[in-house]
């Protein structure tokens, strides 16, 4: 329920903190994000800002899409998301949010699409332990026992099994803002964020607790 931005993951690097220790950081191209629409409680049932990111040329925009951009008088963008906030009255449609909304030292949450791992076994997917490699062992990376026999005559729900892993929406909480650069639209966060390079991200301020 607090302000945020859309961005794109650039990559990772490292910095030295005041004590000279190495800190891993993620570089994010955050904003500029034009406000496309305001959602209000009286009209829509909730308060939110619809913001866009990553401009795209008009020739790639089809007519129905173009209609919504002309309505809010904003040039076309590739990525659009809603950010739920408490009070929309401070913001206007067409206003552009930039990386300055975040301050150094502030905590943020970052949502993205995690890297896809394909069909993964239980060792990788659920961190189960593996079997012995040799000495006649014929059980290496299997999923283990499925459970009982005649009783209960079924596999319990939630049993760790192989399946598709990654490529899912995922949020990293509590990342500290290391630096912002308005000219380059650069947001530097301590730690890592989900997704591969150039993947879209939603960066939100931490909701106030209590």
């Amino acid at each position, binding site marked *: 329920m607090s302000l945020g931005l859309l961005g794109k993951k*650039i*990559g*990772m*690097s*490292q*910095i*030295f903190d005041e*004590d*000279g220790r*190495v800190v891993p950081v993620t*570089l994010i*191209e955050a904003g500029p994000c034009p406000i496309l629409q305001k959602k209000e409680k009286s009209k829509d049932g909730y308060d939110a800002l619809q913001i866009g990111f990553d401009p795209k040329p008009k020739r790639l925009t089809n007519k129905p899409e173009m209609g919504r951009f002309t309505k809010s008088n904003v040039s076309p963008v590739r990525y659009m998301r809603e950010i739920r906030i408490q009070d929309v009255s401070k913001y206007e449609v067409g206003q552009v949010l930039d990386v300055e909304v975040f301050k150094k030292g502030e905590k943020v949450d970052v949502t993205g699409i995690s890297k896809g791992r394909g069909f993964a076994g239980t060792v990788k997917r659920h961190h189960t332990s593996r079997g012995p490699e040799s000495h006649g062992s014929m059980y290496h990376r299997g999923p283990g026992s499925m459970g009982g026999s005649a009783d209960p005559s079924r596999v319990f729900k939630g049993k760790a099994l192989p399946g598709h892993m990654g490529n899912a929406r995922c949020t990293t909480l509590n990342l500290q803002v290391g630096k912002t650069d308005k000219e*380059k639209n*650069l947001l*530097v966060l301590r730690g890592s964020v989900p997704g591969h*390079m150039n993947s879209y991200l939603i960066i939100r301020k931490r909701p106030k607790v209590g």
Partner: protein
Amino acid sequence: MKKQVREFEAGMMKTEIPDFKSGDTIRVSVRIVEGEKERVQHFEGVCIRRRGGGMRETFTVRRESYGVGMERIFPMHSPRVESIEVLRKGKVRRSKLYYLRSLRGKRARIAELKETPGAKSLKQPPESTDETSQEPSPGE
């Protein structure tokens, strides 16, 4: 690496790093903070490895003191590393000198790399080739 990452790192990287490589004997001045006080300590030894690029580059210095081998890994661009001084150029045939770990004393020596007059004359125009190739140094 992406351009934006390089630009980000370029601003923080040191510009004055002496030209040294594995096999060289170097002296690293390390800033040490003890509570309020700050002092500079020197670590002298043979550089046995340089790895990584850009902001991530590190190097390893090995020395033997009181019969005990000691290695320290320094991030090249760390603000704690105040200066690096090359004391002696070493002549080695590989970039990672891990074999020094199993050698001690005289066997762990590294020959000094000298500017050979023969090699030099190849680069220079063959103007005074006869003189330089016959007499390596005037002192001999």
